[in-house]
């Protein structure tokens, strides 16, 4: 009886248990579910921020590197990648950018997972600290920022139309730094350019006070300089880092030794130096088939534009040589692109910066170090920049070996941000975007009024005044109809422009454009010609394209006559609008500037020609 009780109990219970365990809801997957930002990589070369580890495996769990080793078992049900023949690196850190628009998105698509901004509006800083400390899925790279930079009234930095608080006296420094930190700035950047003739600058006392105030309030202070003498001043004032390599003179041994001893880091920004020096390196990126498919049209345009000419005092060879010497002396060199200055763009230009560092004499491994762990260390960031257990899973997998050939940094196979694989798709080929032909090659003859032909009006085009007040500049333009035109039968377009300093590239003039910036095709035309007369000076023609951000492709031309004299015919070759995509034409501006002054001029017979 007792035995029977037991046998019945145990049989019934076993049956019940088996039934229950088979009835419980089972997931499709064979095993335990890992979060989406968990995965493993096997048999891969790893650049850990310092050295190469061959044949390694790595496990990322919940967005954090949780295990590394040579004989690591990837859990059965974890997403696993075979890394054979590939190299895994920390996500790149750009130590010098300016963030606006889609910069954080664009840079992430080129494996830059963290940006150190060196000047942007205070609003840009909103939410950046919360975002960078979380481990959420994102299509943007993380941001550290100086916020607005310290400069003198009228100094470098005041020309961009951003409302910035300038300062002139050392007593202002401490309160100024306090206000920046309250706005969210992570460090202080000051502009010290006392030796540039046409530009106001902070004096040495104020700069030194800023450095001291920054240190007292617990943050790094970086100085933008452009000459050896200025760099020496900042070094003596105990600055933490120098922004841009000076290219006026070769660096002295004493300077290099002092910088190394004081542990001052330098962000040479060679890409933008090359651009300022007239080297059109943006074209190299545009020609790189590993890069162009992933660039937006706005980025392509930015890469195609240059500073227009070689600026004096920027010798790229001296810049490279100074970088090499400083590096050889043991000074910490960081990779920073200074995008989106003309000729550069967010993300892609950091790869070019690494290549330039190699050109300056760093090994590819050292260039990678400069774009990863060195930057994190210099700014005291502890959760990224290395491939190490406990680090945030910001990493990239490339199919080449960038530690041997730096150009391989473009061979991006996978970008991982916070453990999530970033969707990286080729931009839609431009040919696929069908845009309508512009209805009339004659954009304006102004016979009766300032409106373009009926066909163009139907398409939505109109003439209007344009000036840099839209970019917080101070220039002003008015347009009106003038009765007497170049052909003496009809009228012309009269522009009264006042070009004033206040924006980096000030302008004021007339604009022919579509209100919604809708793209139109002008690929059939090779030239832009118009008749003009007015105040002598330098003028600029700019062509705007749909969806573009930043400086548009432009050409300068000069008016030599005056408003009462004969008309001049200006013919500009379309090819010389660098970076223009003619299928995306959205507008045309004929403006006075960038030199300040009062300009009165008339335009007639604006025509696209073949």
């Amino acid at each position: 009886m007792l035995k029977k009780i037991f046998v019945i109990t145990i049989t019934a219970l076993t049956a019940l248990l088996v039934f229950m365990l088979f009835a419980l809801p089972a997931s499709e997957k064979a095993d335990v579910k890992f979060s989406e930002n968990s995965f493993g990589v096997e048999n891969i070369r790893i650049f850990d921020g310092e050295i190469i580890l061959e044949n390694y495996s790595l496990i990322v769990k919940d967005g954090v590197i949780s295990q590394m080793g040579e004989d690591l078992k990837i859990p059965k049900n974890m997403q696993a990648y075979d890394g054979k023949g590939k190299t895994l690196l920390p996500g790149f850190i750009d130590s010098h950018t300016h963030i606006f628009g889609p910069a954080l998105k664009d840079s992430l698509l080129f494996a830059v997972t963290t940006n150190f901004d060196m000047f942007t509006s205070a609003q840009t800083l909103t939410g950046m600290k919360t975002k960078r400390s979380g481990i959420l899925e994102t299509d943007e790279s993380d941001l550290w920022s100086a916020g607005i930079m310290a400069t003198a009234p009228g100094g470098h930095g005041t020309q961009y139309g951003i409302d910035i608080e300038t300062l002139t006296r050392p007593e202002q420094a401490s309160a100024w730094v306090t206000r920046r930190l309250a706005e969210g700035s992570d460090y202080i950047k000051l502009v010290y350019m006392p030796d540039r003739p046409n530009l106001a600058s902070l004096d040495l006392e104020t700069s030194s006070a800023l450095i001291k105030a920054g240190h007292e309030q617990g943050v790094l202070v970086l100085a933008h300089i452009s000459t050896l003498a200025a760099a020496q001043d900042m070094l003596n004032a105990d600055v933490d880092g120098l922004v841009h390599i000076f290219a006026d003179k070769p660096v002295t041994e004493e300077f290099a030794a002092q910088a190394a001893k004081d542990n001052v880091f330098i962000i040479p920004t060679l890409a933008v130096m090359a651009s300022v020096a007239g080297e059109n390196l943006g074209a190299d990126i545009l020609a790189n088939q590993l890069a162009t498919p992933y660039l937006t049209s706005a980025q392509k345009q930015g890469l195609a534009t240059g500073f227009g000419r070689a600026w004096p005092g920027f010798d790229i060879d001296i810049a490279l040589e100074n970088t090499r010497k400083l590096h050889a002396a043991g000074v910490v060199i960081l990779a920073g692109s200074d995008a989106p200055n003309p000729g550069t763009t967010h993300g892609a230009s950091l790869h070019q910066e690494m290549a330039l560092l190699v050109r300056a004499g760093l090994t590819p491994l050292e260039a990678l170090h400069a774009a990863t762990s060195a930057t994190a260390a210099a700014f005291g960031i502890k959760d990224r920049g290395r491939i190490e257990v406990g680090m945030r899973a910001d990493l990239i997998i490339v199919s080449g070996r960038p530690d041997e050939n730096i150009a391989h940094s473009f061979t991006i196979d996978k970008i991982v941000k916070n453990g999530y694989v970033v969707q990286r798709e080729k931009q839609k080929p431009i040919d696929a975007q069908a845009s309508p032909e512009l209805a009339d090659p004659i954009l304006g003859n102004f016979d009766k009024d300032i409106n373009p032909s009926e066909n163009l009006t139907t398409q939505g085009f109109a003439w209007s005044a344009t000036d840099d007040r839209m970019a917080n500049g101070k220039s002003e333009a008015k347009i009106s109809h003038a009765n007497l035109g170049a052909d003496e039968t009809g009228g012309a377009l009269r522009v009264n422009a006042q070009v004033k300093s206040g924006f980096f590239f000030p302008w004021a003039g007339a604009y022919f454009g579509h209100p919604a910036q809708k793209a139109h095709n002008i690929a059939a035309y090779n030239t832009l010609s118009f008749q003009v007369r007015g105040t002598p000076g330098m003028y600029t023609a700019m062509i705007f394209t749909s969806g573009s951000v930043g400086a548009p492709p432009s050409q300068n031309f000069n008016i030599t006559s005056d408003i009462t004299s004969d008309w001049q015919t200006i013919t500009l070759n379309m090819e010389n609008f660098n970076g223009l995509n003619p299928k995306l034409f959205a507008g045309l501006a004929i403006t006075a500037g960038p030199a300040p002054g009062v300009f009165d001029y008339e335009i007639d017979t604006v025509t696209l020609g073949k």
Partner: protein
Amino acid sequence: MQFLSLNAFFNECGAEILKAVRAPEYILPTLVLPVAFYALFAFAIPNSGVDSARYLLATYGVFAVMGPAIFGFGVGVANERDRGWLDLKRASPAPAASYIGAKIMVTLIFASLALIPIYLAAGFGADVTMARSAWFMLFGLHLLSVLPFIFIGLALGFSFGSNGAVAISNIVFLGMAALGGLWIPAFLFPSALQTFAANLPSFQLAEIALAIVGAPSQSGVDRMPMHNLTIVAIMTTILAGLAFWAWARQRN
């Protein structure tokens, strides 16, 4: 002879089942309390999603098997020893293993009965979904979790009189549950308490269970269930030694 032992074992099991079933005032709380607690924390408290229901299943399963093990052995053995029943058993040819074995078997039966409602509540009430293999592994682990607590119960049963054993068993039971992180996750404890928790078999078993259900590690370092298993094995061996020592000590 083999048959004889098995026969004795089966009869012993039957007797233990009858004894347990005829004392519902003892057996019901150990079956009902765990599922009630689980339901409270997994459903009733707002903001608890499917994931928390899954993690709580891991820890409350360990909680559910602790009761039958600690009380069944601690209080049961102390009581039967008190009234001289154990002496009579030892004088009889009843194999010592069959007495302990039957108690283990009955503990497993009642542990299963305590687990079933929790599993059903998790799977069909809270929509917890896991791989079939994970369900089986988790249940297997929960059943095996009785082992260290059985030895604790035995050590208590051999060391205290029946009244003392009830009091001490309650303290051990509640302490193991609360400090082992079975009710509230251990990572929410102050760090000194966390260090202490790591010394409890309940904590180590919960860690293995959490690894099986795939709960993310809170410390950033990966869960290492094999590591926890080794610790549990060592703890169980020590507790078995302690139980044996308590048994040998009371014999004379």
